[in-house]
């Protein structure tokens, strides 16, 4: 017969419980509701005649209008491009900041990275609109200088969308990378150089592999944020850009079809999970399974 002490939950369970509760409340429950809604003909809360159905998924799979598959591909493409560009911009800057000797310089640079996060996404997107639109700062200036005669197509396309998304999400990439690169012992790189490696080779063979956990975390963060972005693609993309979050918002906000919106949400989450797991595996293999588990 188990003793009273063995039946009592361990102290670790008590420590984990609040986090578990939050996870269930703010992730599992909303997702479960969304997934459940995707299998109902209409909202079962208000409509007693709602029945179970798979028609929302069939609608997505059949895609008679040919826009849902395009929207999924466009969402993933924008997410991938935004992630790669954010990494290319963010990594050198993060490396520079992590290796900065001056504490004041580091603090100032960190402030420069964090400050944009204090401004709302809508405001920053509108700022990009004033810069990239036909009558915006760039086109007006180039036309005034006589370099171009008609405005360059900088907005209402994927280019403008990616530019704004990169600006918005590059701080997330940098903040993740700064922490990881900052913890890499600089003497390892110095040792490689003392053994004859050049600056580039020492970086490629020592620093870069050791910073892979940061690259993985930063990339996943930026990718997840980019594929779920709604405001920026809808304002910067016009009709040229159609992403799944835009379609989901449309289904909820103007078509009042929560079932199909739920199905689109489940599809987006499933596809992005597959990509995330694959990316995780590839990077883990590249890093020799070190530090990525």
């Amino acid at each position, binding site marked *: 017969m188990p003793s009273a002490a063995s039946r009592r939950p361990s102290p670790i369970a008590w420590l984990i419980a609040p986090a578990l509760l939050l996870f269930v409340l703010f992730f599992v429950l909303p997702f479960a509701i969304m997934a459940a809604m995707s299998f109902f003909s*209409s*909202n079962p*809360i*208000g*409509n007693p005649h709602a029945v179970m159905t798979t028609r929302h998924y069939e609608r997505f799979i059949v895609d*008679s*209008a*040919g*826009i849902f598959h*395009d929207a999924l591909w466009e969402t993933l493409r924008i997410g991938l491009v935004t992630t790669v560009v954010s990494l290319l911009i963010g990594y050198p800057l993060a490396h520079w900041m992590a290796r900065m000797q001056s504490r004041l310089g580091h603090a100032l640079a960190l402030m420069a990275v964090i400050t944009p996060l204090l401004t709302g996404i809508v405001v920053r997107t509108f700022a990009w609109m004033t810069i990239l*639109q*036909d*009558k915006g700062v760039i086109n007006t200036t180039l036309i005034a200088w006589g370099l171009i005669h008609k*405005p360059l197509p900088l907005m*209402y396309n994927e280019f403008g969308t990616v530019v704004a998304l990169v600006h918005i999400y590059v701080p997330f990439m940098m903040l993740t990378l700064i922490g990881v690169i900052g913890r890499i012992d600089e003497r390892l790189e110095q040792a490689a150089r003392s053994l004859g490696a050049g600056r580039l080779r020492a970086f490629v063979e020592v620093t870069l592999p050791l910073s892979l956990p940061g690259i993985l975390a930063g990339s996943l963060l930026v990718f997840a944020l980019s594929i779920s972005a709604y405001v920026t693609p*809808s304002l910067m993309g*016009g*009709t*040229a850009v*159609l992403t799944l979050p835009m379609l989901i918002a*449309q289904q*909820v*906000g*103007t*078509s*009042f*079809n*929560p079932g199909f919106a739920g199905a689109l949400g489940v599809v987006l989450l499933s596809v992005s999970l597959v990509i995330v797991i694959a990316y995780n595996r590839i990077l883990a293999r590249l890093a020799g399974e070190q530090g990525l588990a």
Partner: protein
Amino acid sequence: MTSRPPVSRRTMLRAGASLAAAASFGAPAILHAETKTLKITTWGGKWGDIMKGTVLPAFEKEHGCTVSADQAFPYVPKLQVSPRNDPLYDVLHTNSNEQWLAVVDGLVMDRITAKEVPNVADVYPYAVSDKIVGVSIFTSAIGLGYRTDKGITPPRSWKDLADPKLAGARGGYLIPVNSLGQCHLMMLGKVYGKGLQDLDAAYKALEQLKPIKLVDFTGQMEKMLLSGEVTEGVIHDSGVYRYDGQNQPVDFASPSEGVMALEQVLNVTPGSKVKELAFAYIDYMLRPDVQKLLAEGVWYSPANKKVKLEAKYDAKLLTTPAKVATLIQPDWKWYNARKDDIDARVTKILKG
């Protein structure tokens, strides 16, 4: 010999102060318990300022109630997930297309008559026509806004928007999300085809409008026109008239084929616990003095026939039976039944 009172003056003062303090703490709770709350939806911007600054406080005073106004879109999905017998709103204010979607789910009443709202007896026929679910308290004319400083001829027809000179400088709406865009699509069917429901003609005409700058909201179209990003675009008259006297190079044109009606509709939720108050609110919003205040504040055409506006508003807004007769009311029931297919088709056309 003076006898000492059973309670000293100081004690009396202390007790009085304590009672006053207790009363001041307790009173709001008691008041709150007795005061009914009317939950409504309303617009933001200038409309919201007038509502919150003047219209709603006066209603609260008159009816001894409090009004809780939601200005955060989207309203119908929020109503959809609230209990039917205790809905999130008592009065739903939206455009007609959404009222028609809401009535299908039983979220709002299908009709409001003079029996429930006496001022309905004084509204123009369009405000309670068979194209309306609830009652329209204001309307705007959907036509064309244009820049007066770009050397273009003021538009007379909807066809003028297709002028090749306007390529990339013409504006419209994302049809799946904006009822002005949906009205424009139907109007293309009328102008280029057999009528508002001639979708094939409308799709063909839409193709001819590319490249076109599309926005979500009328506020964005206003900004595009004001900044010169768009030279000519679909907009409702109040979106242009509200800049009257501000020295802006924009004007509004009513195309000869007619203007579409953008109705501001109020409706009551069947499960409202304060239905009488909800009807009283709609009646209040239709009162001539309230109608005049809002019409002149945001340049919306009042639904009540008895409203007398200042000359400059009267000249531009739809304030006579003849002017109101120029309004075209779309069949939203018909449109909503096809919305998914239309959305998919126009998305493909405009993306391709």
